[in-house]
């Protein structure tokens, strides 16, 4: 089933089975059902607990804070990931702080979901991957949807935790099928899920056995899908082999699976669609450099999009966002 359908069914199921769940978002009411149709059918079935809201991102996330501190489990849809900036004060100075600054007397488990990312020609303000600005906010979990993680399992896990979370859904994942690990395979690749207690799982996959891989590629979200395709082509066409690590939780980060893979491959390449510099990948470089310096045969390579606006023009957008060609070139280099 494609991701958008799975996500929609997950939200239906959560509303049915957990009466604490309340969903807020702009234009989520039927028959429209949300800008990307993730919320289709929800207002018809749960009119009291699914509220279509005014265009007030800070306000609705703030309302969710009050609900969460009252024992509810609000899930807020921010229509485009670009608009999460409008929620920043509520997330940083309110939601993520309440439990800690009130000495654990309350919890504020708000979940914010947002469709993000580019490659669709939506231009500078509707294409961004702004989650890097939320990485490292204390007491905030940042999660990225991926082609390999079951959205029901992820959202269920987030509903079990007491801390707030930002769940980033790359728009280009919506029409993709979610491929679950099965035995020692993930789709056509060798792969498995690795989970550490207290962390959301990562998946690790490769075209050939791990001991034959000479680079670890760390990627999340839609970049993980592009990376998997690039690695498949490189394996078939050039016999360049890499092991792909795809975390669902990107902050705080379970470095265990990355560290373990780097010990096997001796090289790390990070890929992300967000802008280059001060990024998820630079943090990974620092952390893996610290943990596994002696295991690395070359410096960690961090690949991200150009630090500029995302153009609307298809050709120009391709030059700014990390795409398959850039990835392949970087993988070749890091695998050498």
């Amino acid at each position, binding site marked *: 089933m494609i991701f958008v359908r799975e996500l929609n069914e997950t939200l239906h199921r959560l509303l049915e089975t957990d*009466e*604490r769940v*309340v969903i807020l978002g702009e234009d989520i009411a039927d028959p429209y059902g949300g800008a990307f149709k993730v919320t289709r059918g929800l207002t018809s079935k749960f009119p*009291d*607990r699914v*509220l279509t*809201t*005014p265009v*007030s991102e*800070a*306000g*609705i*996330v*703030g*309302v*969710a*804070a*009050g*609900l*969460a*501190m*009252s*024992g*509810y489990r*609000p899930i807020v849809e921010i229509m485009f990931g670009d608009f999460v900036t409008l929620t920043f*004060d*509520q997330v940083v*100075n*309110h939601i993520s702080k*309440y439990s*800690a*600054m*009130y*000495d654990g*007397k*309350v919890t504020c488990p708000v979940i914010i979901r947002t469709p993000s990312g580019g490659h669709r020609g939506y231009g500078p303000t509707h294409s961004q991957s702004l989650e890097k600005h939320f990485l490292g906010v204390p007491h905030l979990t940042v999660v990225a949807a991926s082609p390999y993680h079951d959205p029901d399992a992820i959202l269920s896990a987030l509903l079990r935790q007491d801390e707030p979370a930002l769940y980033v859904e790359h728009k280009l994942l919506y029409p993709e099928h979610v491929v679950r690990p099965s035995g020692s395979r993930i789709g056509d690749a060798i792969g498995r899920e690795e989970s550490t207690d207290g962390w959301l799982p990562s998946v690790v996959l490769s075209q050939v056995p791990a001991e034959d891989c000479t680079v670890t590629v760390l990627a999340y979200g839609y970049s993980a899908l592009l990376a998997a395709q690039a690695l498949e082509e490189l394996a078939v066409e050039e016999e360049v082999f890499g092991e792909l690590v795809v975390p669902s939780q990107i902050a705080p980060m379970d470095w265990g699976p990355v560290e373990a893979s780097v010990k096997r491959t001796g090289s790390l390449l990070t890929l992300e669609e967000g802008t280059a510099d001060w990024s998820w990948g630079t943090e990974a470089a620092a952390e893996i450099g610290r943990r596994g310096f002696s295991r690395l045969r070359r410096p960690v390579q961090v690949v991200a999009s150009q630090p500029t606006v995302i153009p609307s023009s298809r050709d120009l957008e391709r030059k700014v966002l990390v795409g398959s060609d850039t990835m392949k070139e970087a993988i070749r280099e890091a695998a050498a």
Partner: protein
Amino acid sequence: MVRLSAAPDVDAVEADPRLVGLPDEPRDQRFYRRMRFIRDFEETLLALFEEGLLNGTTHACIGQEADCVGVIEHLRAGDHIFSNHRCHGHYLAWSGDARGLLAEIMGKPEGVVGGIGGSQHICAPGFKSNGILGGTVPAAAGIALGLKLSGADGISVVFVGDGAFGEGVVYETLNMASLWELPLLVVVENNAWSQSTPLAVNFAGDMAKRFEAFGIPTTRLESTDVLEIDSEAERQIGLVRESRTPRAFIIDTYRLCHHSKSDDNRPADEIAARWPLEPLTVHSARLDTAARERIDGEVGAALTEIVDEARALA
């Protein structure tokens, strides 16, 4: 539908009756006592700052005690208060917990929130405060939405000052509170100065109309008289309880102290002109001297004990 897990329990703290009211005390004396308590607490804090015992900063509510006492008189277990940076009076009127608040501001583990929150970030049953101006208003609306969804009969009250009207999220929330018919009372303590800036420099148009534009009925009262405020607050709170819809109650008052500490550049004659109108002066005229002195002595003694205890904490 679920009941609120954080059901407020105002009785959680054992308050000293010398601070919050003796059994069967006449109302005039009770109000005087409760305002005296808040005033003395704030003055004690300022003295402790001078002594170097407190860390950080504090925002005293000297001159605004009648708002705290008059409004909170009509709130009860099951209601929720969201306050702001100037929250001591609200918290003390709600809980009477001088010991917990003082220990908190002194940074002690025995403080209400273990010394983490300090002066502006308090959380207790039915009460929260946050120092980010206006950002508390949507959370208060969310609490009201929770009350509505759970079918509880409580109401949510948020205290803001005139300064918070500069924040956009306040208007986003007023819109939703009105649209969704939330049991929310916004109490505005307009103390005429936003930090160092007078209202006339910060504020265009009419304050009440800003609420009324969203269809939120608004009452404005210029008063430092606790009896007037008490009586209007009773009416406002009753209306929100009954209608389950939002209202706004603007109290035009005056802050007699600095904004936080050592940051008062207001005209001295303006402040001097307000002292004869301050709530304790206005209300104490209703008490005979003996009663007033007795209460002053009782409040003073109770606070002295609390300060001594707090000083002795590790």
